[in-house]
């Protein structure tokens, strides 16, 4: 039989029993739909995280007070705080690959002013910080070298802080109290959004590091030193260079381990991505199981169909159908059913992903690869689960089949 005729015959016989066909396809529809939705959610989360990692800054390297270990016992990152401003200066002075460096002095700032008061992390940084984080101001300006040298009492607010204290006005030029010290707001930063782990990056106050260190009361420490290279290709080399400079600056002997950690953005990203990759795989696996169940549904119905149509098979054989013709006919039927179910499932998946995206606010991404894989997979399910019943049909004895009541 020609392939056109085969498909026409298959479609006709599928349409003869619409309700049953629909129920059979339902398994595949749900399976494929679930795969599409689940993978869309997983990929959406992944691309969200990628975006957030990009959002951290440009070609960024982070030096944090590192884990020291004694006698094989690790004290964990930050157990010894040994970052100093000298370290930052040493990097700035000696590094050939790093084009921008900023210490990040961390303290908590209690702000009073505007409509009330607000507690937010306060970071003392230098002018490079804005470049490293790639973080423009929404209004006003970031502080400059002169502000830093003069230890001026100026602050730049993150968007959340500005919204909390000055919901209706542009606070640039206004004064607030930061830890009981009156400071002037010179700028508000653009919105940066959440970090991969859900922290609001805009809930922050920036001040010149000199000001934080010398003019604000209270404890402060250098939480990290940020640096960036001008080209992403330089990052691995810069990472090693920073480590050498840091060891030198900390006067570590050869046998001593690093008491700091230098990480780059990719490493930060990898940790987050591996989590979502596992999640995507898990979701796809669960959805895949439902596709498998759908396939078993097809096999079940095809077996019933072969029994029910034994006489038809006998007639076809009597008038000259070979075993292969019968096999192909039933196989094409199950493939047509599973592909049709797959196509509908893709539509359901698209709809489901967009509905879930709308109601939960999760990002969903449907890639063309997902669609193709889903279609190929459902066709494969049709072949795999249709083959056994089709073979059973093809192996029937024409005389027995004709006699079947």
């Amino acid at each position, binding site marked *: *039989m020609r392939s056109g*005729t085969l498909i026409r*015959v298959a479609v*006709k016989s599928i349409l*003869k029993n619409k309700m049953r066909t629909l129920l059979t396809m339902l398994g595949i529809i749900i399976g494929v739909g679930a795969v599409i939705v689940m993978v869309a959610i997983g990929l959406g989360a992944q691309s969200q995280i990628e975006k957030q990692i990009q959002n951290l800054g440009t070609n960024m390297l982070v030096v944090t007070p590192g884990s020291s270990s004694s006698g094989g016992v690790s004290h964990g990152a930050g157990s010894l705080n040994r970052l100093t401003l000298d370290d930052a200066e040493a990097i700035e002075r000696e590094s050939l690959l790093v084009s921008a460096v900023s210490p990040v002095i961390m303290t908590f700032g209690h702000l009073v002013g505007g409509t009330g008061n607000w507690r937010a992390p306060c970071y003392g940084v230098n002018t490079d910080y804005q470049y490293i984080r790639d973080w423009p101001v929404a209004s006003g300006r970031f502080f400059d070298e002169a502000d830093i040298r003069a230890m001026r009492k100026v602050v730049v607010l993150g968007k959340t802080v500005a919204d909390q204290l000055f919901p209706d006005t542009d606070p640039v030029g206004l004064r607030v109290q930061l830890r009981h010290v009156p400071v002037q707001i010179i700028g508000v930063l653009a919105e940066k959004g959440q970090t991969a782990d859900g922290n609001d990056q805009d809930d922050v106050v920036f001040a010149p590091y000199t000001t934080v260190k010398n003019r604000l009361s209270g404890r402060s420490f250098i939480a990290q030193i940020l640096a960036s290279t001008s080209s992403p290709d330089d990052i691995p080399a810069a990472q090693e260079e920073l480590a050498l400079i840091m060891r030198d600056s900390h006067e570590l002997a050869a046998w001593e381990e690093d008491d700091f950690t230098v990480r780059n953005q990719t490493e930060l990203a990898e940790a987050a991505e591996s989590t979502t990759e596992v999640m995507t795989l898990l979701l796809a696996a669960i959805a895949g199981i439902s596709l498998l169940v759908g396939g078993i549904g097809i096999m079940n119905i095809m077996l019933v169909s072969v029994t029910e149509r034994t*006489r*038809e098979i*006998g*007639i*076809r*054989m*009597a*008038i*000259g*159908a*070979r*075993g*292969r*013709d019968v096999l192909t006919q039933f196989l094409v039927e199950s493939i047509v059913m599973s592909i049709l179910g797959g196509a509908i499932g893709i539509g359901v998946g698209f709809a489901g992903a967009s509905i879930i995206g709308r109601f939960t606010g999760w990002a969903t991404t449907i890639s063309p690869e997902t669609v193709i894989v889903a279609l190929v997979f459902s066709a494969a399910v049709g072949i795999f689960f249709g083959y056994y019943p089709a073979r059973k049909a093809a192996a029937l004895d*024409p*005389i027995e089949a*004709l006699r079947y009541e």
Partner: protein
Amino acid sequence: MDNGTVIRTEGITRHYRLGTTTVKALAGIDFSVVKGEMIAIMGASGSGKSTLMNILGCLDSPTSGTYELEGIRVDGMSRDQLADIRNRKIGFVFQVFNLLARTSALENVELPLLYDRSGRKLDSRKLAAEALERVGLADRMDHEPSELSGGQQQRVAIARALVSQPPIILADEPTGNLDSGTTLEILDLFKDLNNQGITVLLVTHEQEVAAVTRRVIKLRDGRIVSDSPTGNSQPLVAGRACS
């Protein structure tokens, strides 16, 4: 061997194994059929006529013996080869019509042509329509079997048997499910087809059906017990059809 010989069998046997016993459904059948003959094969149930029919129709293979169809040895052929022989050389008509349900008359008749593997270009629609015209159902082509009377269904089945222009038509109790009026119509149709040169073998146990043929073969216990002309008019000359 005469060139006009369509069927020639020699010592055909067919044994079935039922547990430990062997049932000899056919115990050596020898006969020949010449092109253009119209033959009735008669016998009580259990006489082996259905088994013989299945073997002549290439649905089954003999346990031993030779069967030549148009000079070609058919016994011992593979399943696929037998399917091709059935497709090209044999038209089946069954007692229970055996049409595909929910499928139009035209599509039912077209079916054998869809399995044609000879490679020739066929306008299957047109040929099927012509076959239906030949059996007088030109106006029922789009009807499904459930919308047709028994006689009409059997006509569709006959059209299906005709459509690939086989040298023989095998009819297994073709009037067994029809009333006497319709039986006559269907028998007339077979006579017409036979007059047009088609070899017809009818399996029947009804005397009046056998009466329209020109030769009756009687079976009992898997053997031919009689093979005689009925003395009907219009005897055919071997190999030449007259109408």
